[in-house]
């Protein structure tokens, strides 16, 4: 039956095409299909990367095309790595990255655990919880700016209601101490649902019979949680951490909308600083070196992390 279908298809194929295709090896056909993608990858990703690395050793400025470009060796790298301001930006980025991930993982997992229980209105609650991640970061930034407003903002009034601290006596976005936490809160609000969804997928992938076997063995709920749920959801959680880590390392829009990097530079994350160097100051060579450093950092960390993830999955 199969042979007759193949024979019929071969008979219907025009002889010239058939001959041409027949003359090509499988590898050649594979290359033909893959070539456009490889070409695009080279043109859009690899070439700019190589070009950026090359520019990072020069004093090139994209807004001064008439200016002679000088080869400056490692000077850009040296200036970046010895710049206190940039290390402060890195610290701000690390603070944002670590705390958003911690909160999102804890709250996301807890929410997933609750949503995974069967109860009335489960689907409705899931929809409501995932709403924030469907909004545009610009919109989220804008309305949280109003929520944080000391005179009319809901957050300050809530703080006053619960603690008695006058609402207009503090500014979440304007205080050096509070601003870094303000952006962590907003990002956590927006992206915890994403972590929750991934965790939910992990929880739902655990077969019921494992819990049933544990029940027969008289394992407590606590024990079941630590020996079944957590290990089996861990690869999913680690994946969520990877995604959020990469995203938040390059966080830009939300924070710009909320604080613009201020007050002073306390919320000026590395990506905001890089944008200022590249497209406001137009120090193209310098910012290329900066971009290379960030790329190597994120690529290195992600590679180590993926290895760890694979080990966990292999277990």
């Amino acid at each position, binding site marked *: 039956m199969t042979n007759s279908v193949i024979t019929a298809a071969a008979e219907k194929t025009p002889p010239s095409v058939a001959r041409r295709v027949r003359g090509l090896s499988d590898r050649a056909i594979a290359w033909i299909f893959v070539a456009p993608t490889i070409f695009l990858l080279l043109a859009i990703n690899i070439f700019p990367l190589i070009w950026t690395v090359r520019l990072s050793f020069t004093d090139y400025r994209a807004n001064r095309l008439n200016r002679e470009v000088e080869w400056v060796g490692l000077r850009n790298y040296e200036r970046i790595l010895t710049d206190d301001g940039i290390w402060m930006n890195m610290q701000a980025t690390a603070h944002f990255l670590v705390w958003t991930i911690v909160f999102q993982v804890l709250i996301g997992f807890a929410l997933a655990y609750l949503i995974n229980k069967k109860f009335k209105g489960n689907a409705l609650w899931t929809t409501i919880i995932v709403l924030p991640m469907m909004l545009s970061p610009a919109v989220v930034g804008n309305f949280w700016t109003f929520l944080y407003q000391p*005179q009319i903002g809901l957050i300050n009034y809530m703080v006053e209601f619960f603690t008695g601290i006058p609402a*207009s006596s503090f500014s979440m976005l304007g205080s050096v101490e509070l601003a870094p936490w303000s952006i962590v809160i907003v990002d956590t609000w927006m992206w915890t649902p994403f972590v929750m969804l991934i965790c939910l997928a992990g929880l739902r992938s655990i077969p019921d019979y494992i819990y049933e076997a544990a029940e027969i063995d008289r394992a407590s709920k606590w024990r079941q949680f630590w020996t079944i749920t957590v290990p089996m959801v861990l690869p999913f959680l680690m994946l969520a951490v990877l995604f959020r880590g990469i995203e938040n390392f390059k966080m830009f829009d939300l924070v710009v909308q909320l604080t*613009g*990097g201020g*007050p*002073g530079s306390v919320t000026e994350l590395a990506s905001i600083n890089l944008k200022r160097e590249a497209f406001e100051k137009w120090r193209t060579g310098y910012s290329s070196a900066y971009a290379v450093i960030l790329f190597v950092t994120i690529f290195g960390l992600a590679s180590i992390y993926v290895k760890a993830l694979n080990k966990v999955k292999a277990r």
Partner: protein
Amino acid sequence: MRKAPYLAATVAALALAAGSNAAQSEELTLCWAAWDPANALVELSKEFEAQSGHTMRFEFVPWPNFADRMLNELNSGGQLCDLLIGDSQWIGGGAENGHYVKLNDFFDEAGISMDDFAPATVYAYSTWPKGTPNYYALPAMGDANGWFYRKDWFSRPELQEAFQAEYGRPLAEPTTQRELMEIAKFFQGREIDGQTVYGVSIFTERGSEGITMGATGALYAWGFKYENEPGSYDMEGAVNSPEAVEALEFYKELYECCTPPGYTNAYMEQSLDAFKSGQVAMAMNWFAFFPGLYADPTVGGDKIDFFVNPPQNVAASTLGGQGISVVSYSDKQDAALEYIRWFAQPDVQAKWWALGGYSAHNSVLNDPGFVESQPFAGDFLEAMGGVQDFWQEPTYAELLLAMQERLHNYIVADQGTAQEALDGLIEDWTEVFEDDGKL
């Protein structure tokens, strides 16, 4: 049969006419910031459209993104704008990087004389290198940073009495920066008509140019200079002079004592909002907004009055305003120059002022009725007599961002001292000038 040649001739003539018309009528795009005067310019330009047959398109970008958007456009050689009303600080980059068309020959040919415009505006908006007769723009919109206040509050007898008792002088427009702070302190947290009000709204914005434009109002009033000798790039002792340190400390104190809560990232829009919502007694902003404020049904009319930036050691105001330039990447330069020729006419300049634009033409400014024409016209003239501008170097964006960061760190984030901020600023600026080969 005999009709055929006539018919052919008629068709040819019509085609030629249509062709020549098409060649003459262009669609010009004028780029500017999105604010009140831009709307006035749209109205004014209708006359140009009617006279020239060209049509005008406008690309107005909100102020916080204006510099970013337009400088990217210029740096990429974009053809979005045929005419650009660009900030005064862009003139150096516009000229040196070839973004703007040099207008000297055109001015000679069109009979436009720069002597017909206020010297401060020609110097600031048109020339590069500064002060030389090399023109890259026509002064389009004179502007400076000024102040406005709640005249109705100032005139209340109970407030007059309380102020007199506290400060030993009548509650009136401040004549020095220190007086301004006293008035701001007087109003801060006071109950007026059942509402808590605050002293002043000032510029504290971090992202673009806000805090620099605000703080220089104090710095210039104390006698701040960018260089010891103009053109020398010798900044030590000028930028961080004792007067400059005092001025910066003053601005920080004004921010801390007398602004509404959470006023950490405020520029033009926030200043207007604070005033229009009845939150503050005084506010700083560009003169360009004053016609709109005066016309405001809630806080305008007899409830508002205006004053020039008060002096401390010297009378000086922060320069705003822009010149209009022809973008060198435009393929409609002839039509764009035609617009400038039309715009430079004295009667058009008079209409420009009447519609709410700030003409820099002497025929408007020297008109005997000018000072009385608007309640802020006299202050505008006074301010324009003492304006000072930020660096106009091609590297102005780097210089500005460095100042934004240093000032915001000190004033809003409360990090370090004024002396450290200004010393650090010299370091930053020196690095920029060294990179640019100026030092």
